[in-house]
Structures are given as C-alpha cells and as structure tokens.
C-alpha cells in the first residue's frame, strides 16, 4: 500500500488537472486520463478474482462490454435518466456474472479458463447478431442525464475519478476483511480452507459476481466516454487486454490493476504516435516483462524496496 500522503497528493493532482488542462490547451490528456481510469477500474475488478481469488477468468470483457451495450441500447430505446440506466446495467452484469460463475466455478484450472472464455464468446456472438442494435458495426451510446449536472468531458472525468476512488477504497477494505482473507486462503489452499469449514464455492461466486459488476460499471463509463458501444469491447482480445494489464501491473498486488492500466495505456499511446506497427513494441515489452519480472511491475517495486 502506498503511503496515505502520497495518495492524497495524487488525488489532489488529479482533481486539479481539468482546469489546468483547459487553461493550457491539454484537453486531450484529460480524455486519456479518463480512459486510463476506466481501464484501471476494469483491471482492478479482474485483479480481485485473478489475483486475490486465483480464478483465471478469460471472459472478463463480457461484463465490460455488456455494461457499455446496456447504456447504448437503453438510450436508443428512449431512456435518458442515468438513475435508471446505471442500476439496470449493473444488475444485468451481476446477474450475468452469477449465471456464468455458478456454472464455471464447478471446473478448475485450464478448464475454468476455457469455460469462461466460451461464455464470453457466446455473449459476443449473440450481441453481434442483433442487427437492429448495430451488429458488427457497434451502436451509438448517447450520454444520459444525471439531473444534478450535465455530463460533458470534464464532469465525466470527475465522475470517473470519483467512481474509481470509491471502488478502490471499497476493494482495499474488502481484501483486508475476513471475506478477502478467506478468498486468499482459498487461492493458497482450497481443500484446507474447505476443511476449515468455509463454503469455498459461495465465497468464490460472490467475488466473481462482484468483479463482474465492477467491470460492468467500467463498461458503463466507457460507453459514456466514447459515446459508442463497440463489439471490440466484448471480444476475447479485450479479455486478454485486461488480463495483460493485471499481469503487467502485478497479480494479487493491490495496485497491480491500476499500475498495469496506466503503464499499458501509456505505452500503447506513445507507440501509436511513433509507428503504425505499435503492437510489435507492446508485444516485445510484454514478453520482456514476463521473462524478467515474473511478479509484474508492482513486484519490481517491492523488490527494490526490499519488502
């Protein structure tokens, strides 16, 4: 855990950024920061089950994409109030994660990876098949009305920052709570935890549903950010992308998801500016990280500090 002072300083800087950005003509970076914070939320939600729960879900994009598509479809059908759209989107993602988790958690290891991937693929193909909702072209997602404020690029930035901060605080409390400790105990030794009398299946399912809901929340914010729901958000490459962020940052390190989202997004952004073959660079960097920093960037940090 970073020290409290540093965190408050970071939060202060992030809060002060939009006025500075608009005064100096750096609005572009405000958008970039919004995107990074959205990915930080999605990656942190994956880190909860992947890192703390030891559940390698290869289908996390499903909730991310369904969150975004719910916004797009509901606004298209004439709903405008965010106070309706947000709860519906979150409830839908929670239900989806519950159904997928309830079946997938009966399997273990590689089979769990594959069955979560299979469910995500099913959702991808079902969504893409609805021609009236854009099919493979994706669907425009209007920004809904909050009533209290108008949603523009600046308020979205603050909204995302607020949501991310609240979720990270909640997650921080959660992984340190009894629930979080049992979850980590299951990851370390499932049968021993079961023998101690903990209902392993229900703990895992609860974490799975929570992670899916938070990823759905990130998807909702993504739809507000791009004003568009793309099938790419649901594709398996997106699941891989989120997983890359978590592994890059550090699996099971609290700041792993955030760190990975920041670093990967920045690397992609810089390389995209330099060359159209930016994926080559991303691939090489990822490969080097896996080969030489097995615990991710957060692990490197810890090793340097001798923790």
């Amino acid at each position, binding site marked *: 855990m970073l020290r409290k002072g540093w965190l408050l300083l970071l939060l202060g800087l992030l809060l002060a950024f939009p006025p500075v950005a608009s005064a100096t003509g750096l609005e572009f970076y405000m958008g970039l920061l919004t995107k990074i914070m959205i990915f930080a939320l999605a990656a942190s939600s994956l880190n909860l089950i992947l890192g703390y729960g030891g559940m390698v879900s290869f289908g996390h994009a499903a909730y991310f994409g369904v969150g975004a598509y719910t916004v797009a479809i509901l606004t298209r059908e004439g709903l405008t109030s965010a106070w309706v759209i947000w709860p519906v989107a979150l409830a839908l993602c929670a239900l989806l994660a519950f159904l997928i988790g309830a079946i997938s958690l009966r399997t273990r290891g*590689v089979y769990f*990876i594959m069955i979560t991937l299979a469910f995500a693929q099913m959702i991808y193909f079902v969504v893409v098949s609805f021609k009236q909702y854009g099919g493979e072209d994706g669907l425009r997602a209007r920004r809904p009305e909050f009533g209290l404020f108008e949603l523009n690029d600046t308020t979205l930035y603050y909204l995302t920052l607020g949501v991310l901060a609240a979720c990270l605080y909640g997650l921080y409390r959660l992984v340190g709570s009894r629930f979080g400790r049992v979850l980590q105990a299951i990851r370390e030794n499932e049968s021993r935890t079961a023998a101690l009398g903990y209902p392993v299946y229900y703990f895992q399912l609860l974490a799975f549903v929570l992670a899916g809901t938070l990823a759905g929340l990130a998807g909702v914010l993504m739809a507000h950010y791009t004003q568009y729901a793309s099938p790419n958000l649901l594709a398996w490459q997106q699941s891989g992308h989120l997983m890359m962020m978590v592994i890059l940052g550090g699996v099971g390190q609290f700041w792993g998801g955030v760190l990975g989202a920041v670093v990967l997004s920045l690397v992609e952004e810089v390389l995209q500016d330099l060359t159209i073959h930016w994926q*080559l660079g991303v691939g090489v960097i990822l*490969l080097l990280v*896996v*080969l030489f920093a097995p615990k991710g960037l957060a692990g490197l940090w810890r090793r340097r500090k001798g923790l």
Partner: protein
Amino acid sequence: MPPSLFLEQMLNGLQFGLMLFLLAAGLTLVFGIMDMINLAHGSLYMIGAYLTATLVGLTGVFWLAVVLAVLGTALIGMLLEVSILRQLYRRDHLSQVLATFALILILNEGVRLIWGSQPLLLSAPEGLSGPVEILPGLFYSAFRLTIIAVGLAVAVLLLLLVNHTRAGMWLRAGASNREMAQAMGVPIKPLFTLLFGVGAALCAVAGAFLGPILAVQVGMGESILILAFVVIVIGGIGSIKGALVGALLVGIVDTAGRAFLPLLLGQVASPEVASNLGPALASILIYLLMAVVLFFKPQGLFPART
C-alpha cells in the same frame, strides 16, 4: 431438405473438422505433456498460410510450395521453442498466457511488416479448382475432397506415430505423467523441440489448405485458435484420440449449425427472427457443446491423465 445438400454439408463439416484436428493435435500434446498454454499456436497456422501463398507465387507449383512452407514453418516453430517457449514450461499458466499473447502481437505485426495488411490471394491448384461428381447427380469441390484426403492421411500418420513408435510412446508417457517419464529416461528436452516442430508443421498444412477457402490475412490465427482450444477441451487435454473426436464433432456441428439452423428456425418462427437468431445460435452452438461436455465430463471426453 434435399439429401444431396445434407451430404454436401456433412462433407464440409468433415473437411473442416480434419483441418481443426491438425491444429488441435499439436496443441493438445504441448498442453498435455508440458502443461503449457500456447496461444501463439494459431500464429504458426498464419505463418504457414503466408509462406504457402508466397511460395506459390515464386514457384508456381502448389504442392512444392506446400512442402517447402511446411518445412519452413516447422523450423520457425522449433526456433520459437528453443529461444522463448522453453523458458515458460516451469512458469504458471498466467505467465504462459501473457507471454504467448505477446508473441501473437509480435508475430502478427511481423507478418504485417513483411507482407502488408492486405489479405493475400491463395487460390486452389488449377487441376482441383472445379467440381467433381462423387455420386450420380452430386457435385462436390475437388479441392475440398483433396483436403479431406490429405487430412485423413495426416491423421492416420499421426495416430500411427503416436501409438506405434518409440517417440510416440514417450509422448504418451509424458502426457500421462511427465516426472515419471523423465525418471524412466525419456529425453524430454529434444523430444519437445521435435514435438513443437511437428505441431508447427501440422499448423502449416492446415494453413496451406484452409488458405484458399478462408482468407490469408493477419488475425486468421486467433479465430481458429479458439476453435482448436474448444476441440482439445472437449476431447480431453493431452489425448490425440480426443482431439480427433472433438475436432470432427466441432467441425460437423459448426458447419451443420450454420447451414441448417436458420432453415429450421424459419419453419417455427417468423423469417425476421430466424434471420437474426439463426446465425447467432449457429455461432454459439460449439461453445454450448463445450459447456455441456464440461458440465457432464469436467475432464473432457477422453482424459489423458488418470
């Protein structure tokens, strides 16, 4: 539905299933023996197709191009194993997934650097481009028939290799218990480099023959890789027999679903619903199949480990 259409679709399914088997065979052995998830397996399929397309352009002879492309891809596969993948055997699945995902990015961009982003044209050899009459009144593409013949021949060869040679015995021993096999003196290291070469060669065969039917483009490896994973999970990881059964099952179910589901739905629902829902249902059919198989047999149909 006319029986000839049904037969034609079944043959298409068989043809696709056999090509899937070529991909899945290498994957399942690598997975079963070294407990290694190799997402980059699909990239070798892509490389095989690109090499074939280029060599056809250079030599003008399809069969020569296929042989050379298969050898070339096998070499690339072995080089990958020796240089990078070998370091990943002892790591957890997560690191393997990330590293081989990175390899996909690198190989895709590499291909794009060399060949550009436009899809390549790879056409079936001239003598095989027309249809032949296989039954009175039933015409079928000669090239697809050739694919079935090649697929069957390679499958038989592979089954013979795995079930009736010493190297095959080592492979099976490794798949069922790696440590024990090593303790009994099986030379795992060179065996695995060789296995990787064979797997890459099989990918190249599939790439060369599916190239003219599907498309030779960047990203072709990923879509088929997921199908190959579905196949080996259905069949049971590490089992060649499982890969064969799984591949044929997936090939036939997928092809038949795409051909017949919209028709069937059209008879019970409105055409609008059928045209929307039909393709979607057909796309998810194989994933549904996998979920059902895993629900009843969590280790797949033919578990290699006992």
